């Protein structure tokens, strides 16, 4: 009877207890790591720094530091997977090419992260030991009170006590053992996840990039993407110049010449003049076709006229398979963002029709929490590799200029889903309401 009434109550406790136990167990390798790797590495670090005076440290410091970083990285990973406290890696990137020992030494000791790692090595020893072991010890002691004490008290001879009751020598104190054990066990189970989290937060305090390191990294990323953008833009302008020069411009020169000739001939040979005028008209049409293609590549007119949602609809209409379009943008992004997203979607859609053998595709444009998300998916063969070809990396570069990202999931057999994301504000200009199948 009792077990049946208790059952649901105990069952509701089970996941809680399991979680406490798991966290307590995870504390054990943490503690072990703190007393083994950290003690050994702090000794080696101090030795290597001291021996710099006699030159040995020049070689030893980078080697020891590399080992320290491995341990610190392990700690970062554990904090992320066990306590859901992700810790980014703060180290400056390895430069390209070979370095001489002095350069390597200098780079190691001038990275502030090296010294923060050392501080962590030292403080982690007591912190890791205490936070890692205490929950397990509490649980074990609690179990002792719950299970062993009532059994053993009769067997064990001599003075004995438990927790606050010491010694246990009469019925009153004996009755207090069990509840105390339960309390301590519960405390241990409750403390374990907390200890794991506090430990991870402690690691983040010293092992995460400092504000200035994070900013330095960001500046470097931006510099890189800006350089790429500038390069790409310059190349684009050169292409446009060449296209105009060899195409429409040349044709218009020819048109002018032909009309001039016709002017000369109109009195003497009206028929020849008429033929020439016909030719001039032909040439001007061809120039217009070239200009139109060029303009489409620079800034598609439909984008200027209808904004992103209309332009994406127009794109969907132009591909030879049904495309479901869902646009949910409460306003319009800035023109450069619209353009980047448009071309990114166009490229992704072109890949769908070129490679995937898809039967249907879909486009989704949404904006939440200051991020514009564009998804292009298809039900084709899958197996698309974002690093191969020029299309997908091109999209990545285009979006990088706006601090955007692109991810591709394309398992063999499909579906392929290209997700493009960038942060941007929307202006209150209304876009055209649009959704439907094209």
């Amino acid at each position, binding site marked *: 009877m009792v077990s049946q009434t208790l059952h649901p109550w105990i069952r509701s406790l089970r996941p809680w207890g399991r979680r406490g136990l798991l966290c307590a167990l995870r504390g054990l390798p943490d503690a072990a790591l703190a007393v083994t790797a950290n003690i050994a590495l702090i000794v080696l670090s101090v030795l290597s720094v001291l021996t710099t005076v006699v030159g040995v440290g020049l070689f030893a410091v980078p080697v020891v530091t590399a080992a320290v970083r491995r341990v610190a990285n392990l700690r970062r990973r554990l904090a992320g997977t066990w306590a859901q406290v992700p810790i980014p890696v703060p180290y400056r990137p390895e430069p390209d090419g070979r370095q001489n020992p002095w350069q390597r030494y200098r780079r190691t000791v001038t990275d502030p992260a090296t010294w923060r790692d050392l501080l962590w090595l030292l403080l982690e020893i007591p912190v890791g030991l205490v936070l890692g072991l205490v929950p397990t010890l509490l649980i074990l002691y609690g179990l002792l009170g719950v299970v062993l004490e009532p059994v053993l008290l009769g067997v064990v001879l001599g003075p004995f006590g438990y927790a606050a009751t010491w010694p246990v020598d009469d019925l009153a104190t004996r009755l207090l053992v069990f509840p105390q054990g339960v309390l301590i066990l519960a405390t241990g189970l409750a403390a374990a996840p907390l200890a794991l989290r506090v430990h991870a937060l402690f690691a983040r305090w010293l092992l995460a990039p400092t504000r200035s390191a994070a900013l330095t990294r960001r500046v470097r990323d931006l510099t890189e993407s800006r350089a790429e953008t500038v390069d790409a833009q310059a190349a684009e302008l050169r292409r446009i110049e060449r296209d105009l020069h060899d195409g429409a411009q040349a044709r218009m020169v020819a048109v002018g010449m032909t009309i001039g000739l016709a002017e000369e001939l109109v009195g003497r040979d009206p028929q020849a003049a008429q033929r020439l005028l016909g030719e001039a008209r032909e040439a001007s049409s061809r120039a217009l076709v070239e200009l139109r293609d060029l303009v489409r590549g620079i800034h598609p007119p439909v984008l200027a006229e*209808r904004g992103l949602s209309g332009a994406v609809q127009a794109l969907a*209409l132009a*591909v030879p398979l049904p495309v479901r379009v869902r646009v949910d943008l409460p306003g319009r992004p800035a023109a450069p963002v619209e353009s980047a997203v448009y071309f990114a979607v166009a490229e992704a859609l072109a890949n769908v029709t070129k490679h995937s053998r898809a039967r249907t595709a879909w486009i989704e444009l949404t904006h939440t929490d200051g991020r514009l998300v564009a998804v292009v998916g298809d039900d084709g063969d899958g197996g698309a590799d974002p690093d191969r070809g020029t299309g997908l990396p091109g999209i990545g570069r285009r979006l990088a200029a706006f601090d955007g990202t692109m991810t591709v999931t394309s398992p063999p057999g499909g579906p392929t889903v290209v997700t493009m994301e960038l942060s941007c504000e929307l202006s209150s200009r209304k876009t055209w309401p649009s959704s439907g199948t094209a």
Partner: protein
Amino acid sequence: MRVVIAEDLALLRDGLTRLLTAFGFEVVAAVDNGPALLPALTTHRPDVAVVDVRLPPTFTDEGLQAAIAARTQVPGLPVLVLSQHVEQLYARELLSDRSGGVGYLLKDRVSDVGQFVDAVRQVASGGTVMDPEVVAQLLARRTRDEPLAGLTAREREVLGLMAEGRSNAAVAGRLFVTEKAVSKHINSIFSKLGLPPSDDDNRRVLAVLTYLDA
């Protein structure tokens, strides 16, 4: 025939006016911006309007919007829309009221004066004239929609030429067949698309619309 022209570039506006006047049209108004277009269309109620998609002040698609708005106030008001580029999206929007009297051409086509004037007349008489570029885009697509899947290749060709606003005689000339053969094809298209016998012009519009919607 009375015409309203909307075009912001003076050079082209004057050119169009001169061209249409030379072919016997009477240009009753030539406006150069979007806001002036709608009142011009609804007060003059021309036999046909020739409208540029992109007009000041926003240089987006104000001409198109004004044309569509005018057609909701004056159903069937014939409008020929000109643009530097053609989009199926716009073609659909223009045709969506299903009343015909709609043209949609690249500006380039103006240079072929004879054909352009023909197109204006076709639109004025309630026909539908789509730019060959729009039709080419449609032909490039796989057949994927049920209503069109049943058409033979030749019937699709005929339907494409119908969309360009060509008469039966012109279609026959283009495909090197007799006019009788063409009208047989057209009847077969109508029945396959489920268009009941009615006023022939309207059926042509509906067939073209089905074509664009595919």
